[in-house]
């Protein structure tokens, strides 16, 4: 009897991984028309480039804008017209400016529908660690704790493994937390995973083309489950 080769965490990938833009595109697909959304820096910020047709979002940036859209060309722009990632949005009708008191009342008060953030580690019960690498000893919290703790829905868009094929999806975070039990969904370069925070279950919903459940599981420390069919990310 032979069994299919399990490539193992150090094995070769069965198929290419999605690039950063494709991760963002997949995360963007689930954003619901009319939502108030805060996108973190890195892959999450790219979601804005891939909204499905007909979907319009109200983007919030924690430095005090709601309703911005198109960005100016890199390096150009007005310093008084900045988003929280340091990019310079164009002025569009209907956008609103406010100070940080109001910006964080909006967040802490639970008025942000969805935040898409990056992560260093996510645990099976939805704990998020994304502000400090312990080895460095010092980190940056910014708005991440407020967003993770208080947004109605928290989506993580990230690469599945850290350098050296280290699993970022773990049984328990070893890095200091940003917020406990907050992550609803993880979108990576090889999978889409829903989190059942209450029961500490990770439900694999989709895999990248050419990737099987076993392929993804082999690169994931925490145990994955399925609930019905596993789809393909595109």
């Amino acid at each position, binding site marked *: 009897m032979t069994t299919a080769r399990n490539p193992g965490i150090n094995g070769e990938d069965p198929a290419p991984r999605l690039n950063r833009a494709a991760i963002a595109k997949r995360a963007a697909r689930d954003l619901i028309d009319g939502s108030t959304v805060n996108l973190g820096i890195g892959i999450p910020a790219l979601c804005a480039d891939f909204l499905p047709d007909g979907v319009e979002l109200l983007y919030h940036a924690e430095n005090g804008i709601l309703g911005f859209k198109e960005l100016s060309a890199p390096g150009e722009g007005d*310093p008084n017209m900045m988003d929280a990632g340091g990019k310079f949005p164009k002025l569009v009708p209907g956008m609103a400016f406010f100070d940080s008191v109001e910006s964080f009342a909006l967040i802490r008060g639970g008025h942000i529908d969805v935040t898409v953030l990056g992560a260093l580690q996510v645990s099976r019960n939805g704990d998020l660690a994304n502000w400090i690498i312990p080895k460095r000893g010092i980190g940056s919290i910014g708005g991440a704790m407020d967003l993770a703790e208080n947004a109605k829905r928290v989506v993580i868009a990230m690469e599945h493994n850290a350098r050296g094929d280290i699993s970022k999806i773990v049984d328990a975070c070893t890095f200091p937390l940003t917020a406990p039990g907050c992550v609803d969904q993880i979108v990576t370069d090889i999978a889409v995973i829903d989190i059942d925070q209450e029961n500490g279950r990770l439900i694999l919903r989709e895999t990248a083309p050419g990737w099987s459940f076993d392929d993804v599981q082999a690169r994931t420390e925490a145990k994955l489950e399925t609930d019905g069919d596993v789809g393909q990310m595109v």
Partner: protein
Amino acid sequence: MRRSGKRPYNLAPVPINKISNSFADAVADIPSGASIMIGGFGGAGGQPTRLMLALRDLGVGDLTIIGNVAGISKTTGYGWPDHLDPVDQGMFFESGQATKIICSFPVPGTTNPLSEIEKAWREGKAEVDIVPQGTLIERIRAAGAGIPAFYTPTGVGTPVAEGKEHRDFDGRTHLLEHALPADYALIRAEKADTRGNLQYIGTSRAFNPAMATAARITIVEVDEIVEVGGIDSERVGTLSTYVNRIVQREPGDPLP
């Protein structure tokens, strides 16, 4: 009943003319050991850059700086147009003037060179207190609004919660956080009238309006000073009551 800590009634009233002739004059009385809020978000917009440079030139030390995104522009270009050399709060750590910072974002990403703040921290020359941004701004707001402490859900279950009172409200755990006042606030606005009412532009508000309320002395850097009435009463972003000193930039200043 105890009433210590009330703001003192100043028998020498704040002069009606709050305009300082220079940035150097405006910061001249800041002593060593002072706590200083620096407005803006991080990046050039809303940052009191000329006041910061004047404070550096003043040379006083043992400062506690309170800011938000702090000291990362110089190494990353954050919030600055590409053609300009960024100026940020790291200058007070490079000069050795600051021994502590309270902020939310002092460390750039791993692919960037170390910031002046991180260098000072690694060398044991500076204490860095990292506070979630929403908690930081609310602590500043609370200080200005006469609220000594408040509860927030942000930070529960994280290192931020260590040593703090926890209390459940409606089935959710919160942390007790304390108001954060300062000796001085250096802030930035687009326009001031001669009375000290301020008008802001775009995303330059950020931490400026709250910091204006939370310091013993608030000093504002503006692009333009106008007569009373020159700011629409409907558009006053900070009330003159909070403002002690106003300095106007040179027209056409190349620094944003």
